[in-house]
């Protein structure tokens, strides 16, 4: 079961991991605070401040207009939901298939899922016109005797995302319990209190491990179809409309693949940053980048294929509606964005056919960022180009994002970063026990002194 890994990890002992991870939590340098302050500041300034302005003024602060009633808020929403799709989903798949290379990275990948979901959920609030009544979209008994409309794709969204956030939170938390327990023993003061509560009194007995294993497996089994459903449902927000170029059967798989694609690219980015900043060079290795690279390449090819199919069917239909929408996408106001997307998401990933490229950290970082820029563009184009070219030509228009929208978009990345920075100081960002599992178990060696273990 435990394939020996061809990387540096197995040279390390259990203790080294422990020390590294606990240090990453407890020892905080000024750089961290500067980063946190910057990210937090940018969040306040670029996300919450414009949003408050928008709440006061109305959605008009954004650039939405008559045909283009949806804008970057929805594009960002899909983007963040999409970004969430690799963490937990990938983690579940790899858990079930017992791929050991996941183990060093899955914690941060899951955190990415969680925080992108949080950002996405926040975007729902940013997007709607009257967020102070958003609770009406939640089923609860009330004096008006009114319930939400369960036939609406948007309500599928509410249900799916609520489930997904719950599931992802539980999944990352369950996997972290043993590590919380481990950190608990090494800390004191408020951290000790916090970890005592978080670890729930975990002791690592055979029974607890056994239960955790099964619970974790069931969760993984449940979350995989959930994750697929979530992005399918997000796609249905569009596909269930009859807008030309949105009303497509292929949208659900297209969105799911796109989501995993951008999420995987996101993992590469996060891995790179964690590796550099948290001193996890030994745990996050070329192997991870190599494997992620292969995955990305496959996803890129599938994405390109589906994209091509979409264009082809639209063109082949020959109807004015599809034809004009297609033409606008390819050669219209936002054509430059379209070709940028093709470059970043379909052409550039071809580089990953090269093993050397896949195992080079910085190029992979750049590529992963490029892919996500491309994928953001894709979502933007879906919203911006299709709504502008609908059935009645005299009602056509052009949607252009406003500074408020762009600022909130930038701010959402800062929000994500802030949340992530807080995360790395609370959660062990590398799963200790699973990395330990990947190592060679200690062999029976008589009278080996218990080096490094606390007295």
């Amino acid at each position, binding site marked *: 079961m435990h394939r020996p890994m061809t990387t540096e990890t197995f040279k390390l002992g259990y203790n080294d991991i422990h020390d590294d991870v606990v240090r990453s939590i407890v020892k905080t340098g000024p750089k961290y605070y500067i980063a946190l302050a910057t990210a937090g500041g940018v969040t306040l300034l670029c996300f919450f401040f414009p949003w408050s302005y928008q709440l006061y003024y109305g959605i008009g602060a954004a650039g939405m207009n008559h045909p283009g009633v949806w804008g970057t808020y929805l594009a960002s929403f899909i983007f963040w939901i999409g970004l969430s799709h690799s963490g937990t989903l990938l983690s579940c798949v790899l858990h079930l298939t017992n791929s050991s290379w996941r183990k060093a990275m899955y914690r941060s990948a899951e955190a990415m899922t969680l925080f992108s979901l949080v950002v996405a959920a926040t975007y729902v609030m940013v997007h709607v016109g009257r967020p102070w009544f958003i609770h009406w979209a939640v089923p609860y008994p009330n004096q*008006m005797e009114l319930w939400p409309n369960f036939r609406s794709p948007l309500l599928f969204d509410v249900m799916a995302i609520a489930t997904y956030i719950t599931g992802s939170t539980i999944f990352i938390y369950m996997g972290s319990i043993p590590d919380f327990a481990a950190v608990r023993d090494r800390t004191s003061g408020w951290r000790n209190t*916090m970890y*005592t509560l978080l670890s729930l*009194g975990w002791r690592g007995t055979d029974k607890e491990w056994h239960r955790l294993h099964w619970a974790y497996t069931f969760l993984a089994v449940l979350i995989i179809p959930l994750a697929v459903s979530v992005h399918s449902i997000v796609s249905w927000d569009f596909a269930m409309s009859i807008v030309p170029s949105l009303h497509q059967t292929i949208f659900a798989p297209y969105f799911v693949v796109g989501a995993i694609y951008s999420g995987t690219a996101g993992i590469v980015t996060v891995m790179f940053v964690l590796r550099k900043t948290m001193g996890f060079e030994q745990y996050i290795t070329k192997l991870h980048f190599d494997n992620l690279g292969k995955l990305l390449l496959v996803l890129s090819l599938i994405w390109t294929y589906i994209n091509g199919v979409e264009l082809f069917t639209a063109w082949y239909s020959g109807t004015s509606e599809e034809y004009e929408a297609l033409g606008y996408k390819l050669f219209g106001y936002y054509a430059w964005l379209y070709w940028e997307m093709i470059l970043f998401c379909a052409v550039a990933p071809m580089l990953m056919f090269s093993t050397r490229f896949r195992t080079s950290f910085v190029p992979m970082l750049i590529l992963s960022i490029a892919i996500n820029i491309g994928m953001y563009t894709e979502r933007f184009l879906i919203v911006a180009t299709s709504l502008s070219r609908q059935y009645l030509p005299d009602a056509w228009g052009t949607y252009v994002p406003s500074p408020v929208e762009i600022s909130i978009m930038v701010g959402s990345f800062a929000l994500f970063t802030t949340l992530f920075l807080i995360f790395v100081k609370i959660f062990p960002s590398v799963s200790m026990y699973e990395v330990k599992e990947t190592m060679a178990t200690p062999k029976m060696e008589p009278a080996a002194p218990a080096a490094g273990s606390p007295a």
Partner: protein
Amino acid sequence: MNISIVPALKVLRPAAMLVIVILVGLVLGYWANATFVPGNSPEQPIAFSHKIHAGDNEVPCLYCHTQARRSPSAGVPAVSKCVGCHLEVATEKPQIRLLMSYWENREPIPWIKVHDLPDFVHFTHKRHVLANIECQTCHGPVETMDRITVSSRAVNGSAQVGHPWKMGLCLSCHRENEVVNGIDCLTCHK
């Protein structure tokens, strides 16, 4: 060595108590305001008593609120209406003198609106009066009120929380009496 989460919970207890106290305090404060200063019984420019008029003297509601049977709004009587009686009745009371001063100055009385529906609600007195719905069903025991207050006889459990005039109030009555299209949103919302 042993482990449990109890010590950690003990550490958190003061903070938890603080949170509980604050929550309870907020609810209490809100409740206190709702109960003691409900704001649904403002002091009117003239201390007109529905108890005296509608209760003790049994003046019918529609005698003064004449419009209720033909208009969406029940209307408030003009000063002339009051004066019509009070030229003769109870002329010496201080409030009536106040009334007469409005009359003599030809000034309308700035009555404060107590029963106020939101802008998005369409309600017509006419239909309800013509359907023989008693005024008290929605307005409560007006004939016992010295100062007019928002209250209602039709009680729907959740609708009674806070302000009695909520959608649930209309709805329960419409459902109960099986009003034609009574639960169609457009019947009441404009």
